[in-house]
């Protein structure tokens, strides 16, 4: 078996960034221009620290949605197990009837005694027992799925109520503050209007005073030209000019006050904008997540582009890579993490790895028109793998494939999940494929979320 190349798939710094974003899932995922918000917060005299708790709320919303996905996933599993069990029950009935027929009919009883039908009846009885054993196995699965479903429902309910409680409280408190601000804004608005009118009126008066003074100065000039003594007028004119300067000072005082009022109004408006950004940010994010789950298959975005975009889709991809990729800093890949992923996606499917491997081989078989890795050493690796590949090896292989092949990325994100679903034994119904895949994506996400919180 060939060894998977050891080339790191992610730079160490990127890993660090990823770790940071994992810790603080909230605020950096909020849409909108946070540079602007920072500035706006500075403008209202605060620092933009609020996102931490508000971001927590967002984080919980995401978690709730994840739990919702998990609930759906367990429902699908349970439904699948129940359907399988029903099918086996039917099969059992048929086999039992056939066996009884062999044993019961008079002719057959005669043949049975003679040993003719002994083998046939024995074989039917053996199949009967085998099916019964399978039914018991499905009973266990049903019990386990039911228990997981109840657990997920309880988790979802806890997170939902936590979100509702917190958002309600925060929103109510923020609303109270904004109402107070608004009250003051309205009150000050009328004062500002009055001051604006006073300033405007006095500016006009000042202009008329200046005009009048100019005319008087002209008459003084005429007096001078006539040879008169204008000294006393000069003194008087200087006095009037002084009075106008006094008026100007008062006007400027009013204008300065107005400027301060305008700046103040901007701060109040910023407070509103910030509040709206937060509301829209959280609500918009939540809506987007819901739309994402409900999105029809045909309108799914390109996974390749999504994997390079730091949006929510990107988070899913990052989660997958994070789970699959070995640590770059040479610390051993955590088998627990991969086991967790494995158990949540291949649970109850002992042959899942072999089936998945078959699927991989099929996917990259030469006859496959999508075979983009034929010339790659990875193709050989996949071809040479056995079904008993240990987790560590799987992690190496899958992370290498994921990092090097857009086709494989797309495959992991869609078809592989479909294949896992097949291996898992959940019957895929028409029109349910996308949602089933989505629930599996949710599982991956949940695994990632758990890994993150741990």
């Amino acid at each position, binding site marked *: 078996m060939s060894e998977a190349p050891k080339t790191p798939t992610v730079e160490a710094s990127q890993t660090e960034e990823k770790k940071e974003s994992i810790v603080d899932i909230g605020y950096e995922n909020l849409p909108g221009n946070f540079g602007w918000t920072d500035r706006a917060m500075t403008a209202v005299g605060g620092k933009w620290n609020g996102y931490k*708790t508000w971001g927590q709320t967002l984080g919980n919303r995401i978690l709730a949605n994840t739990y919702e996905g998990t609930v759906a996933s367990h429902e699908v599993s349970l439904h699948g197990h129940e359907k399988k069990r029903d099918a086996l029950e039917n099969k059992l009935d048929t086999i039992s009837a056939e066996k009884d027929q062999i044993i019961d009919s008079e002719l057959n009883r005669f043949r049975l005694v003679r040993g003719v039908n002994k083998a046939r009846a024995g074989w039917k009885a053996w199949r009967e027992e085998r099916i019964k054993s399978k039914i018991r196995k499905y009973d266990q699965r049903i019990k386990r799925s039911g228990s997981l479903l109840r657990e997920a429902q309880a988790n979802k309910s806890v997170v939902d109520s936590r979100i509702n409680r917190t958002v309600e409280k925060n929103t109510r408190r923020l609303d109270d503050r904004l109402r107070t601000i608004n009250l003051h804004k309205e009150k000050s608005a009328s*004062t500002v209007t009055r001051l604006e009118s006073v300033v405007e009126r006095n500016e006009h008066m000042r202009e008329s005073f200046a005009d009048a003074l100019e005319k008087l100065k002209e008459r003084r000039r005429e007096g001078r030209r006539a040879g008169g003594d204008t000294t006393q007028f000069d003194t008087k004119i200087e006095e009037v000019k002084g009075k106008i300067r006094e008026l100007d000072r008062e006007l400027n005082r009013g204008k300065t006050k107005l400027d301060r009022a305008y700046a103040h109004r901007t701060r109040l408006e910023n407070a509103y904008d910030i509040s709206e950004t937060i509301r829209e940010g959280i609500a918009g994010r939540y809506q987007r997540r819901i739309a994402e789950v409900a999105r029809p298959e045909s309108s799914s975005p390109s996974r390749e582009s999504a994997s390079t975009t730091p949006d929510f889709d990107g988070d899913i991809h990052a989660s997958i890579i994070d789970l699959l990729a070995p640590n770059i800093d040479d610390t051993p890949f955590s088998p627990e993490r991969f086991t967790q992923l494995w158990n949540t996606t291949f649970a109850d499917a002992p042959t899942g790895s072999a089936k998945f491997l078959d699927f991989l081989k099929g996917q990259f078989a030469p006859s496959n028109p999508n075979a983009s890795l034929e010339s790659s050493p990875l193709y050989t690796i996949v071809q040479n793998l056995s079904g008993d590949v240990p987790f560590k090896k799987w992690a190496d292989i899958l992370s290498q494939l994921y990092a090097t092949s857009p086709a494989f990325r797309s495959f992991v994100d869609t078809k592989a999940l479909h294949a896992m679903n097949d291996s898992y034994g959940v019957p895929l119904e028409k029109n349910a494929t996308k949602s089933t895949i989505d629930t599996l994506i949710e599982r991956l996400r949940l695994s990632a979320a758990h890994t993150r919180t741990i």
Partner: protein
Amino acid sequence: MNDDTIQDTELTQELATLGVQIDSATATLKKDVDELSTELDTHFAATDKALEEFVQELETGEEEV
């Protein structure tokens, strides 16, 4: 010279009247600005407090339970 005297008297009176008008306007303006500034200062203080509380609300929020 007589004409000049009349003109001087008129000009002196007009300048005095203008001075009185300006004084009156300045006094009224000063009074208005004082009054409205005090009113605005009260609003500023109140809104500053409200803004401070708003920011505080954002900075702390309600802790997740």
